[in-house]
């Protein structure tokens, strides 16, 4: 009887120790949340960071840029990933809640417009893509393709890519109500691969084959031209993305509340290091230049 009681107390004590241990480590874990476009990239960056710095822990979650920024404002994450700049509404909210955001550019993305691999189209003008997504053009034959009703794939409104595309390609107009609102980049890719009349937009990291580091062969990535006069460029063309000739390139961001400190600062420094930027490049995104890196370091002080 006595032995049993002792055993019980022992297990209870052990339980408490474990429980408090996990609480303690959870406190030190860096929480990152936001953009679905960069969730894989940041996940890999954090794995490499943890491998180099044993004992540090980072948890990375997706959910969309809007969700990440909301989490930063509500104080439920340390770093927010976002693929669009903060909206003025969000900035006002930050001021109200006394959140002093510091924003860092971590990579450049050539946002890719994808179609089914059987689609004969290889390039398109920005204005036409906008018209397709606004619902003004509804058949592929209107843009020189086969006679098929276009089926649109896009993101949900909490996505930074959704907002970026709306502002830069649709000209701040509404999306067609017939656009399918998918959960993430991977679902858009999955949908377009199966849909002969599909068109979608995803971060360039999602059209790269993870093994060969080349464009996947089960879909077509359209070359995009600024207007009817200019040449169309591929989102994989580094020079065109850098010079702005590829018209839908965009920076990808991370934001913190206040000056980054401790492990958070170490992690951001790691991303800005040559090692970190090599990983960015390996994952299909484009590294940030010297100017942006020095801006980032200024921003950390």
């Amino acid at each position: 009887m006595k032995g049993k009681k002792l055993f019980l107390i022992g297990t209870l004590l052990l339980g408490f120790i474990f429980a408090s241990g996990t609480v303690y480590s959870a406190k030190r874990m860096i929480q990152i949340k936001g953009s679905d476009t960069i969730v894989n990239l940041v996940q890999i960056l954090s794995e490499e960071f943890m491998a180099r710095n044993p004992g540090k822990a980072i948890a990375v979650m997706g959910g969309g840029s809007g969700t990440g920024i909301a989490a930063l404002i509500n104080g439920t994450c340390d770093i927010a990933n976002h693929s669009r700049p903060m909206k003025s509404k969000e900035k006002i909210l930050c001021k109200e809640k006394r959140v002093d955001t510091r924003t860092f550019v971590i990579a450049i993305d050539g946002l890719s417009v994808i179609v089914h691999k059987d689609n004969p189209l290889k390039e398109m003008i920005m204005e036409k893509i906008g018209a397709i997504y606004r619902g003004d053009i509804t058949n592929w034959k209107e843009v020189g393709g086969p006679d098929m009703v276009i089926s649109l794939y896009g993101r949900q409104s909490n996505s930074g890519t959704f907002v970026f595309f709306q502002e830069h390609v649709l000209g701040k107009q509404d999306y067609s109500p017939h656009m399918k609102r998918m959960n993430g980049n991977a679902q858009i890719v999955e949908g377009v691969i199966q849909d002969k009349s599909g068109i979608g937009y995803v971060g360039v990291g999602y059209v790269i084959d993870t093994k060969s580091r080349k464009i996947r062969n089960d879909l077509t990535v359209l070359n995009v031209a600024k207007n009817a006069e200019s040449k169309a460029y591929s989102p994989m063309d580094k020079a065109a993305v850098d010079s702005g000739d590829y018209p839908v390139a965009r920076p990808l961001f991370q934001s913190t509340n206040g000056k980054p400190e401790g492990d958070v600062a170490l992690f951001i420094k790691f991303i800005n290091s040559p090692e970190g930027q090599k990983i960015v490049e390996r994952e299909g995104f484009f590294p940030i230049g010297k100017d942006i890196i020095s801006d980032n370091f200024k921003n950390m002080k």
Partner: protein
Amino acid sequence: MKKKKFSDLKESVIKAFFFTNGILTVMILFGIFALLLFTAIPAFREIDLKEFFTSHQWNPTSPVKEHYGILSMVAGTFMVSLGAMIIAIPIGIGTASYLSDVAHWKVREIVKPIVEILAGIPSVVIGFLGIVLFGPILAKIFGTSNGLNAINGSLLLAIMALPTIVSISEDSLSAVPKTYSDASLALGANRWQTLVRVKLPASLSGIIAAVMLGMGRAIGETMTVLMATGNAPAFPRGFLSSIRTMTATIAIELGEVPYYSTHYYALFAVGLVLFLITFILNLLSDVILNKYQEREQ
């Protein structure tokens, strides 16, 4: 004398304890209803009630003009739920009849737990099946370019509602007193007639309850439809078009909405409408059940 007082006290404490337990669910229900109601009402300071219920445009984040009309998503919700019931009710009752009347008891002992395990599959996994398996198959069958549509959602919800319908229907079929079927068989009815004209009517209350529970699951289910129906906010043109349900709208938009904005209140208003729909459904099934039981007595 003192002892009696103590036992009286004990009695009343226990009574109070069970009373609190009993009243707790009622209080939780009223609490949820009140929360929904009071968070939904501010939405109508800026949204026209008529627009809310009759417009089919829902676009609260539009850069051009915001629209708050729930007609399309109400239609979407009803389409997938009704579709699911059309598929699940015949199969569910058929399976239940087979298990209770036809199958050997050994088969029943194996099959019934397996059907119940089906209920334990996470909705995300079922939604995933909808994207990679049912979607392409449906696209081929109907000759559409993709399978992210209302039928896909209906099929998946039917799969999710089946375990409930089968399990509860089978229980109520098995609960029909043996004397009923004995009498029927003794009067010369065959097994089919006994099942259809005696056992099924006798267990109707249980079967209706099973169907209603299944329907409740279908209307409230979020993740599966969110993944498999494409979520296009346009008013559905038919079962082959992509639809967006009320639950999916709330799930997609609540994560990013600024607190205490019109959009935020509007989402609660959608939740309130959803709550009222399921509440009325449950109430109706209760009324039907009671009426039926009265007649039986």
